[in-house]
């Protein structure tokens, strides 16, 4: 009994501040918890590679804005997939769910002239219904999600084809929807957003520190907080500066600068979903079901309910991605959300650090992994036009990420 308070103090002090934090981080890595490290290293390596080979084109702010728009759909689908992957399940149909929801948007707004709010509502509601159906089949009937969503993958592809017709397209004309992927925040708006993000992070984390200190709990060293906040500020301000540069090829005719609207949209999804997953009891239960469903059941958690909600979130986020597809392509076609989309989104989540075995993953993984995937998609065509090579490289990257996942899991299981 006598040593316990002393231990508490020792734990609270985190000897060495930043050095201690680095030490703890290395310990975590050794324990098999790699976090965002592989994605960050991969991103740095890819940027160096493409930057040195095709610096002028790849490193331009025009291409950077393009990268954001290209990756956005994969990132949003991956955010949804993370909920399902956390359960140890999969949604193979998420890509075509996005396409089908985009088609609903196109049909209601372009062909039937529905107002924006109703069109968006119909699009998102389609996602909710799809998720509900898939979730019930998996959670209540106990059909493996692999089978359910392989079936819906085919079915939704068919529905998309039936709605649009072979070789046809539905144009998107709504200004607001087109603006998401084609317009930018004013320069001052970008700076304001950057300040709000950095200031908000600093304020929230400071308040959390004070709360923990008041409750007599261990807090991270102030220097660690300072280092984290400083790093975030540098990254956010650099991105804002880069995107606020003029990137038009002919600035005297049209000026293109500012943060694309899709970026704050992703930011809002990131903050909201991270809150849901880490600060609410629902989020806690998602991790519990993914970690040990039987333990969750005995703890009184409704495993069926948690699973269904995760599938609904996944398909609804796919519907959001469908809106982004429609905005970026100005249209919806039978291949919207098809080809590599699903593979890339799963790849993004796994590269970011979400486990295919369930129980491990964070929303930020969708962003880090999505950027890696985006950089590959964006950079490879600068090097080769060969589609075969692009497919092969993308497949290889996904396999490498899955191997890292399996190996780090083995490491943490074996102790």
């Amino acid at each position, binding site marked *: *009994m006598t*040593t*316990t308070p002393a*231990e*508490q103090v020792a*734990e609270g002090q985190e000897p060495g501040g930043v050095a201690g934090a680095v030490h703890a981080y290395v310990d975590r890595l050794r*324990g098999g918890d790699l976090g965002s490290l592989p994605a960050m290293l991969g991103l740095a390596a890819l940027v160096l590679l493409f930057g040195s080979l095709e610096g002028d084109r790849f490193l331009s702010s025009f291409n950077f804005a393009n990268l954001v728009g290209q990756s956005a759909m994969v990132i949003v689908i991956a955010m949804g997939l993370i909920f399902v992957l956390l359960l140890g399940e999969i949604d193979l149909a998420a890509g075509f769910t996005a396409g089908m929801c985009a088609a609903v948007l196109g049909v209601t707004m372009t062909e039937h002239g529905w107002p924006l709010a109703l069109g968006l509502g119909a699009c998102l509601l389609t996602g909710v219904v799809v998720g509900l159906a898939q979730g019930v089949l998996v959670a209540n009937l106990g059909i493996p999600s692999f089978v359910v969503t392989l079936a819906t993958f085919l079915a939704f592809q068919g529905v998309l084809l039936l709605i649009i017709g072979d070789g046809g397209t539905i144009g998107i004309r709504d200004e607001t929807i087109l603006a998401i992927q084609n317009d930018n925040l004013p320069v001052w708006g970008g700076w304001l957003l950057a300040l709000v993000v950095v200031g908000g992070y600093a304020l929230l984390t400071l308040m959390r520190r004070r*709360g*923990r200190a008041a*409750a*007599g*709990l*261990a807090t991270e060293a102030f220097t660690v907080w300072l280092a984290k906040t400083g790093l975030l500020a540098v990254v956010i301000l650099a991105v804002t500066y880069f995107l606020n540069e003029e990137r038009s090829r002919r600035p005297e005719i049209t000026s293109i600068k500012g943060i694309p609207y899709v970026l704050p949209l992703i930011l809002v999804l990131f903050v909201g979903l991270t809150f849901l997953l880490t*600060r*609410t*009891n629902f989020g*806690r*239960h998602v*991790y*519990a079901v*993914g*970690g*040990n469903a*039987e*333990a*969750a059941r*005995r*703890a*009184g*958690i409704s495993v069926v309910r948690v699973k269904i909600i995760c599938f609904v979130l996944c398909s609804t986020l796919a519907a959001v991605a469908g809106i982004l597809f429609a905005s970026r392509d100005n249209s919806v076609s039978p291949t919207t959300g098809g080809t590599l989309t699903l593979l890339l989104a799963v790849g993004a989540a796994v590269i970011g650090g979400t486990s295919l075995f369930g*129980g*491990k993953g964070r929303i930020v993984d969708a962003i880090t992994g999505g950027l890696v995937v985006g950089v590959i998609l964006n950079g490879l065509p600068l090097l080769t036009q060969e589609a075969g090579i692009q497919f092969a490289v993308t497949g290889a990257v996904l396999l490498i990420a899955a191997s890292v996942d399996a190996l780090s899991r083995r490491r*943490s*299981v074996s*102790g």
Partner: protein
Amino acid sequence: MSEPDASAATAGGDTPLLELRGIHKSFGAVEVLRGVDLKVRSGRVTALVGDNGAGKSTLIKGVAGIHNFDAGEYLYEGVPVEVHDPKAANALGIEVVYQDLALCNNLDVVHNMFLGREVMKGITLNEDVMEARARKTLDGLAVRTLRSVRQPVASLSGGQRQTVAIARAVLWNSKLVILDEPTAALGVAQTEQVLRLVRQLADNGLGVILISHNLGDVMQVADDIAVLYLGQLAAQVDTKDVQRNQVVELITAGRSGDIGLSPAMAEVAL
């Protein structure tokens, strides 16, 4: 303190925390429990022993509300109660630590201890309160082996995991903690540590039922021993009144000298 007959119990004045009388339970045609009586008192460790298939797990599952008994009286703090599901048992202050522990490896110690019963602040988890309460509970049990309550359960040793599972059970002002084979998978040092914890629970005033196959553990930590023999209670005796070989006889034959089932009863049971 050992009361072989009912009149002594009423004369004693202190009602047992849990009392079962004449419990019957059948699965189809198989009568697994046939008139079991059991008394568990606060502040004492009651060991429940018996050969494989004697009905130990069935008995505690009934107490925990997982099965319903077919017949018999279930008294809790002297009052007859109906316990038809695990939630009802929890509400009475009964917690079970199952053999497979049922912890989530990917969650930390605090998260596991509060799983399914999280403390909320509005719509958000109140992590600070949960962490402080988890610490307090572990300190109250004199648990000193956990480096941090924020480390994932995956990184804990078998004994530490057992500790977390037990701490989880006592977090809820529980009055009766039932442990199914808590040391079965542990090494010597860890077994010692868990037994000390079991003792601590009783010393803190809780009633404890300890199911164990290890008579060494039982003789060391239990205050009294209830022996199940083919679905009947052969005897419930004070540990200090019996020798280890007598317990072995009770387990294998249902009787030992003048304690246990009458020869006729033991025969019938076979």
